[in-house]
């Protein structure tokens, strides 16, 4: 084992005999672009709606529910897709989320929620994961589009203005505390804080 490592180490640290320095550095640079670009392109592909709704679990349950909501269909045609709310935009956070999501690949392969009944049985648990995530990051994914600093309270309904200018402004509450179930249907909410 030690011999093998030494053998490869020697190859790596030996100066190149056949290739010029220019070729090696330029080639390395080029391959770097291809690999890095390819990696990010592949990762971006897993952020598309086509990819997310590629499995029937997502397509027939949560995607259908999204279509009735204001985040899918609205006055101005601005639209949020799955990854806008469920994947952080920031690169390091995104990688962390993508690694977590390998559990979802496992779920697809072994059919954790491959029927409507199984999905309904797990709805509360899955929803709780998302509430916990958004609570922990102060509703970061909401705030990618909805910036508190640019909210005009005078254009909100009195009820909304009242809540946003007090509880949200003071940081006592974050978006997800009140806006649960805005993009998908809610599970049985018994015992959830703020729900009767």
């Amino acid at each position, binding site marked *: 084992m030690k011999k093998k490592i030494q053998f490869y180490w020697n190859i790596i640290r030996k100066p190149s005999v056949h290739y010029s320095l220019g070729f090696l550095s330029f080639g390395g640079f080029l391959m770097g672009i291809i690999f890095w670009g390819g990696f990010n392109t592949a990762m971006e592909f897993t952020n598309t709606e086509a990819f997310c709704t590629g499995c029937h679990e997502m397509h027939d349950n949560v995607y259908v529910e999204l279509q*009735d*909501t*204001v985040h899918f269909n609205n006055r101005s045609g601005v639209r949020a897709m799955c990854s806008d709310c469920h994947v952080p935009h920031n690169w390091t956070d995104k990688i962390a989320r993508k690694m977590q999501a390998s559990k979802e690949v496992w779920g697809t392969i072994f059919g954790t929620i491959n029927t409507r009944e199984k999905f309904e049985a797990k709805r509360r648990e899955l929803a709780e994961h998302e509430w916990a995530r958004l609570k922990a990051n102060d509703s970061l994914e909401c705030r990618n589009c909805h910036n508190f600093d640019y909210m005009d309270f005078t254009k909100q*309904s*009195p*009820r909304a203005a009242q809540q946003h200018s007090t509880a949200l402004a003071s940081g006592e509450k974050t978006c997800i505390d009140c806006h649960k*179930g*805005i993009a998908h*249907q*809610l*599970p*049985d*909410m018994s015992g959830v804080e*703020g*729900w*009767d």
Partner: protein
Amino acid sequence: MTIKIPALACLLLAGFSVIAADNIATLRGDAALHEQGKATALTPVENKDLRRKRNSPMEPPTIPHKIDNYQVDLRTNKCLTCHSRKRAADSQAPMVSVTHYMDRYGNFLAAVSPRRYFCQQCHVVQHDSKPLVQNTFKDIDELLQKQGDPR
């Protein structure tokens, strides 16, 4: 006999409508029977959060705000997150009336009675739109005043 009376009433009504068809403006508008009439434009829901006057003491109050996508089903009731007894103090929304916590025999329950659970059976939003038909409704106070108020 009890079955015949409504049947007779229907026949009479049908007869009347045939005779009166030319004089009555219907909600169809001008469209001929074999044509699809032009749909009226949708109007926005009033969202002012101001309580409206009730037209009678027993009228279920109308909803003075938007309720788009409020989920009220077997799993949960979005309305109650503000209007229930437990939540009303925090939200300062009017609590659902005490009658909603009674069963049909008048016994009080701990939670909203299942028969009163589906809010929109009685409470509805209001649109800011022109009435489709003329309405001659008079408030009870107005009627009493006309009669010299026997109260």
